């Protein structure tokens, strides 16, 4: 990037100069724009969620009424308990959590060691392997969903049958070129001198990875972990195909399967419950998520 040398702290100077902003006309336009943006954003992004929560608490009669009521007349919280029961959210949530945590641990172990090998051990054909991993980013998973599904039903050579098995989620999640790339780029920035010293002392590579690289890499590990967990929570098509057993389903798939058989306010209650984990994650890890997006954007 050409502008790294003279980069100044953010928010010093943007398109509009501070002088223009301070002028009478400037400040009037600024406040109008700010009000408009806040209003539109609230209306577009918050109101639908408000409608979802209040819709859940309306009675079947009230939810179908025209014109609609802005506030539920007598908020009924028992619908959340009903939805929990009807959708079997306990099982679904437990499954999803299990897949997410497993995917997190497995993908991290696989991708970190791969990135370490590619970045620091630099084996023969390392660049070709990295290129092969990155090339898979050009092909969205849905394009190869049929052969991938067939692979799951009968893993070549090994003959495993992975339908309804958590490995059907974990293996593909670990095969993530972007994660390997992010990690490798971070490891590249760790000075080799640090590792050479350890190497001369005869510290085995796995210990170098565990005691030197991993502690330094906490920020990028956080980002990769978050993305993996969020990915598993949000995914729909793949779990729909490979976890057909209703006892093994994820939250997303389970909701879609039962949504046709329950009332509108119960669906909304189910959606509210399904949104809560991700919103909590977002509240807790906002900073890392933003950092991760930025890391991704520098890819070019």
């Amino acid at each position, binding site marked *: 990037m050409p502008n790294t040398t003279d980069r100044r702290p953010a928010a010093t100077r943007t398109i509009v100069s501070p002088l223009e902003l301070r002028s009478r006309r400037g400040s009037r336009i600024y406040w109008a724009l700010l009000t408009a*943006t806040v209003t539109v954003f609230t209306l577009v992004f918050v109101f639908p969620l408000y409608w979802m929560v209040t819709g859940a608490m309306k009675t079947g009669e009230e939810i179908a009424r025209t014109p609609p009521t802005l506030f539920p007349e007598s908020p009924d919280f028992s619908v959340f308990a009903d939805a929990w029961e009807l959708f079997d959210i306990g099982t679904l949530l437990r499954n999803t959590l299990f897949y997410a945590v497993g995917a997190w641990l497995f993908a991290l172990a696989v991708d970190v060691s791969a990135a370490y090998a590619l970045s620091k051990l630099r084996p023969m054909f390392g660049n070709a392997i990295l290129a092969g991993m990155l090339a898979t980013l050009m092909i969205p998973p849905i394009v190869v969903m049929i*052969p991938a599904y067939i692979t799951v039903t009968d893993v070549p050579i090994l003959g495993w049958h992975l339908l309804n098995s958590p490995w059907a989620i974990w*293996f593909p999640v670990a095969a993530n070129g972007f994660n390997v790339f992010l990690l490798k780029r971070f490891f590249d920035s760790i000075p080799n001198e640090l590792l050479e010293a350890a190497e001369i002392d005869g510290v085995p590579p796995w210990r170098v990875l565990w005691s030197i690289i991993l502690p330094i890499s906490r920020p990028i590990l956080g980002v990769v972990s978050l993305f993996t967990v969020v990915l598993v929570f949000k995914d729909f098509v793949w779990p729909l195909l490979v976890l057909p057993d209703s006892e093994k389903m994820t939250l997303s798939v389970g909701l879609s399967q039962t949504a046709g058989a329950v009332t509108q306010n119960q669906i909304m209650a189910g959606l509210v419950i399904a949104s809560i984990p991700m919103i909590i994650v977002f509240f807790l890890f906002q900073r890392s998520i933003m950092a991760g997006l930025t890391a991704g954007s520098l890819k070019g």
Partner: protein
Amino acid sequence: MRTLTVKPKPKQQVATERRVAPERQVVPRRRPPTKRRRAARRNLTAYGFLCAALFCFALFAWWPIVREVVLSFQQTNLVDEPSWVGLDNFRTVVNDPAFGEAWRNTFVFTLLALLCGYVVPFAVAVVLNELRHARAYLRFVVYLPVMLPPIVSVLLFRWFYDPGPGLFNQALDAVGLPTLAWLDSTSTALFSLVIVSTWMNLGAGVLIYLAALQNIPGELYEAAELDGAGILKRIRHVTIPQTRLILTLMLMLQIVATMQVFIEPYMLTGGGPENATVTVAYLMYQYAFVYGGNYGAGSALGLMLMLVLLAVAAVQLRLTREEK
């Protein structure tokens, strides 16, 4: 950090003592090959670390691509030995009346989604970058739908689109506008899908552009202003050139992402009305998992989509290379 420097040290003495002793016996005799041997050992360790990833990639990323090509020339039911059928699968899908519609819909969807999902987030990011207040709130709010599982957004919007008590028609009615059939009419169904899709993905683009905008040095704007450039000219001559790399990259990512649209037609319209929302990915799913396991025809469609996406990627590479 402290554990980092302190811990390995005591080990170091033990390790050197242990290692030096046996090597003295072997090394003098075969001095020349040691370098090569060390390289070999290094490679072996590296591949040890790589093997799990290679296994995952081989099975679930690389092999499926090869298998897709193979499958598209085969007839298989996963039980009997597959038979080679030449171009039959391609003939089947091309002759499907939904084939043309699926491609047309996918392209129209991509185009509309690019207008809403590529141009709008950039404009929003430019505006957000100018604002000095409520930034944290706006950033949080715009990214909120991105965090929700897509199934939540899709089912929520299915209710909004409901022609009776749905929020959208109620709102139109309240301000005296004619109501729409949304998902039930061939003229609006595809656009309704674009709206949901945009709503749930917009935030990611906004935040990425915002990060790029914050890296633009303020001096450039100052210089442009001194040269008498108005606000629009500053955007054209400073903002856009400075973010060009990310803009081109995001264009490709967006195309790849939108071409695989699936959950929206699957949950909202089932491809209807009258194939107005059948997309290539959805048709592919139907061949393989709805019409009784025609994996060959599905793979043929998948292969076509893959080739289109690879062509997009090739153009993209070309463009970025020219920039450099």
